């Protein structure tokens, strides 16, 4: 059974690239561009992992992640954003809300490592 990953980002090229990469590595990926679509997807097909941007058109990413945590408390969340936090600040402020914080300049290989780590049974 392949793991299902939900990816939320308002930039289409980012969604397409990450979906292509994760699919080629054996994951089933659902890509959406808004929080509204993300909630619909969660209700229809609960993911095993969520990867989300911070700034979305229809919502704040952190607020959306809080709601997703409430809906799926066991599902890990990766915050993948171009908004640069200081590493310590990110750990202090986001550590309780997300499983992992990655900058968008992080390589795909590193992202894959984190995905594997978080989905390890």
């Amino acid at each position, binding site marked *: 059974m392949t793991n299902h990953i939900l990816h939320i980002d308002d930039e289409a*090229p*980012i969604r397409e*690239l990450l979906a*292509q*990469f994760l699919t080629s590595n054996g994951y089933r990926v659902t890509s959406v561009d808004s929080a509204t679509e993300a909630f619909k997807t969660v209700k229809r097909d609960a993911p095993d992992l969520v990867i989300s941007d911070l700034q979305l058109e229809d919502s704040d990413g952190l607020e959306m992640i809080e709601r997703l945590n409430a809906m799926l408390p066991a599902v890990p969340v990766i915050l993948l954003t*171009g908004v640069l936090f200081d590493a310590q600040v990110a750990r202090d402020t986001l550590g309780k809300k997300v499983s992992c914080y990655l900058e*968008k*300049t992080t390589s*795909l290989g590193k992202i894959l490592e984190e995905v594997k780590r978080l989905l390890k049974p």
Partner: protein
Amino acid sequence: MKDNTIRRVLAFFLLISAVLVAVAFVAVRNINRSAASSDWVNHTHAVILEAEALLSGLNAGDGAMRTTVMTGDARDQAACREALGSIAEHLEVTKALTRNETAQSQQVHDLESLVNRRIDFIRQVLAARQSGGQEATRPLLATDAGGETMREIQRAVEKLKDDEMTLLAERDTASFAQAQTTRWTVWLGVALDVLLLGGVAWLLRDDIAARRRVAATLHDANVLLEARVQERTAELAAANSRLSTENLERQWANQALEHQLRYNQLIVNSINDLVFVLTKAMNVSRVNPAVVRLTGFEPADLVSQPLSRFVRLAPGNGETEEPMLDPIQQALKEGRDLRDRPAVMEDKRGRKTAVRFTLFPLRDGDKVVGGVATLQLAPSSPASPR
């Protein structure tokens, strides 16, 4: 290899066929000779039998003649004539049998003279007995005292029989030799054919072994080729996967950099302070929208112009208005920050505005390649945000 083998096998079979034909030819010829020898054996025995019958008939006639002389009985005379009649018959048969043999024919001819002479004598005796009685035969019989003629005939018949037996022995020897020749010919032919068939079998076995070796070599080559193809395919697939991943990584990096650049651009453009990016020679290389808005200059008017044309630091305590060395240039040269220094900015219309000046050197590694100057409007200045 295939054509050579077929040619060799065909050559072997042709040779075998030739041997078989030769053996058959020799065997048939020898069988014919054996049959001829058998005919000669029968012929010899026939000659001997006829000669013996001739002698027997003559003895019977001679005996009957002597009986007739003593008895004068007509029945004895008839028996004598009957015996003489059979002699002529046997003599003709013997002559016919020896017609093609010169020596035997001559012997039979001599025997015939002797037999005819004896028959004539017997007839003379019988005629004398019939005409003059027993006394009339006495002078005739006296001439035959001792039976010399009969002994001559017996010797002639024995000689004929001996010669025929000699011929028979020679023909038996020849017949045996022919039979032996036939046996040797057949056995030699069989042996030769067996050898040739063995040669064909060896040739076929050798060819099959060679074909098996070739097939095994081909199979090994195919297995090796298949393994190499699979190995190469796996390498190509891995290389393709690696290239795809690298390509995705590059696209991802470009996208992330573009996103980050756009994001940073938005941050810089959203700052309300005036931001000047400077070259190492203190010329303006870039400004934010606040500079355009607050000075009235267009970006084209500002770029490549010296910063000193728009901004000057206010003189400090005890300093003259025109210092010998521009302190901003000096700080940039030394790679030092200048923070929150009072300065004066001149806009496009020549109006002067008091600002707070801050300079950060731009470093590329350990080298200063330029600087960033920010001007914050003093709270009392007319252009400061309210």
